[in-house]
């Protein structure tokens, strides 16, 4: 295996919630510093797969897993792999904006503090807010509650909060599905700007969005037992114009959902 070519890779990954199998034999390799979109019908396990990458599924007691997930050269579900360390390197942005009910400044300072940041907090916070294209809108109200921001601003704050910890990967679980079209556009532009400096894996229901923001796309489907499996993974360009699998083309052109 070539260590540096892929930042995240799964090999015959099977995921279970109790006795229910959510993912079947997923083998997927994700390249660094690009945007990879996970698409597929509802219930195909895109979010489950995403939540395996930063071990958020650990919080669900009935979750179990077979197979391998690697972050660089490290087996993520090894006994001696620490979930807290993994999560500080692989950040996450959720479907619904979830800023803490604290000030804008405090929302970013929290991550810095728990990760033992020793630099200048003000600089780090300004830099993260600039990277998420929010600085100009909030620079005069850093001590105001984050709850007062609009939905789109809240989501960009959540992205800034993830960036402040300086992760190598950011996982995004339908980050724009709760936002209006203009706020969605701002998030998409932001994702394009961030790609290159950070690896992004994004789950989306919105086919056009996957086409607009991602470099590569992985298409998942559900089998007859409602377990998700990977159909194909390729350049977004190719998936959307000339997919290898007929099922992919049928899904993308909207012939079934």
């Amino acid at each position, binding site marked *: 295996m070539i260590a540096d070519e892929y930042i995240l890779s799964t090999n015959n990954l099977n995921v279970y919630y109790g006795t229910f199998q959510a993912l079947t034999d997923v083998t997927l390799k994700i390249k660094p510093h690009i945007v990879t979109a996970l698409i597929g019908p509802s219930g195909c396990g895109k979010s489950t797969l995403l939540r395996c990458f930063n071990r958020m599924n650990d919080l669900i007691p009935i979750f179990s897993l077979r197979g391998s997930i690697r972050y660089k050269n490290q087996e993520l579900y090894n006994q001696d792999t620490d979930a807290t360390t993994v999560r500080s390197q692989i950040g996450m942005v959720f479907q619904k904006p979830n800023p803490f009910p604290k000030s804008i400044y405090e929302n970013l300072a929290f991550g810095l503090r*728990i990760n033992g940041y020793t630099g200048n907090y003000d600089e780090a916070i300004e830099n993260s807010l600039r990277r998420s294209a929010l600085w100009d809108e909030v620079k005069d109200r850093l001590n105001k509650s984050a709850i007062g921001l609009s939905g789109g601003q809240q989501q960009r704050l959540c992205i800034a909060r993830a960036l402040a910890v300086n992760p190598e990967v950011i996982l995004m679980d339908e980050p724009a599905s709760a936002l209006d079209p203009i706020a969605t556009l701002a998030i998409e532009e932001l994702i394009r700007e961030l790609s290159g400096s950070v690896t992004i894996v994004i789950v989306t229901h919105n086919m056009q969005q996957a086409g607009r923001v991602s470099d590569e796309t992985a298409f998942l489907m559900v089998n007859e037992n409602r377990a998700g499996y990977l159909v194909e993974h390729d350049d977004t360009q190719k998936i959307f114009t000339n997919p290898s699998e007929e099922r992919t083309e049928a899904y993308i052109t909207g012939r079934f959902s």
Partner: protein
Amino acid sequence: MDKNIFKKEHYNQHLTRRYSIGKIYFTIFFSCLMVGIIGLLILLGQIFTQGVGMLTWTFISSYPSRHPDQAGILAALVGSVWLMGLTGILAVPFGIGTAIYLEEYASKNKFTQFIEINISNLAGVPSIVYGLLGLAVFVEWLNMGRTLIAGALTMALLVMPIVILASREAIRQVPISHREAAYALGATRWEVVKSIVLPSAIPGIMTGAILSMSRAVGEAAPVLAISALVYLTFVPTDPLDRFTVMPIQIYNWISRPQDEFRELAASGIILLLVVLLSMNSVAIYIRSKYQTKSEE
């Protein structure tokens, strides 16, 4: 589709009748409210007219006496404050700790389910049962005597289920999404609890704690079993002193034949109500002050 079945004359809305039915129900519900309020006002008015004359500084600053005009509630008032403080120190930290453990740490299994059911059951046990339990365990078996600390331990057992239930409710109100956000930044469980869960849950927890304290101040039965003292001519100064509390003093005055003592009892009730109401207002104030901050 046959159009004839949807003709206008097929509908008769009986609007007048439907509105009057609505009015009748409104009147019923409003009367229900009024029965409670008027009953309470009559009671309060009665007590107030009886007791306000005796409510003087002498009343607050004197010990009980055979002469009604010299009698006061000082020993009981100080006893109540002591009991409330000690109960709070004992019950609140353990109650909150238990709630945090059950909500944030404990895995859901048969054992924790058993504990949870029992906590809810304990909140409904009559207070005299706690009094007798305290008498048997703290006063007799552990040989503490009829002291403040024995009373406070008993009272702490009594109110702890209330603190636990209120705290758990408050902790459960904190959205999962806030916890997830913190975990995703690399926070440990304790950091999530300390920085995300508790700040949002504190108003609810404080409210529960204060309400449980006011429950402790108002209880007579358990203290009657533990203390059994009414005629106290000194103020307790440490937890090993004997004590009495306001509800017991009031009960004692009411049971005397002379009218003057009835008036003293009414004054005592007013004072007790003032203490209880001001504690409840503090709880409401804390809740409303923090609520705007922690709203989602």
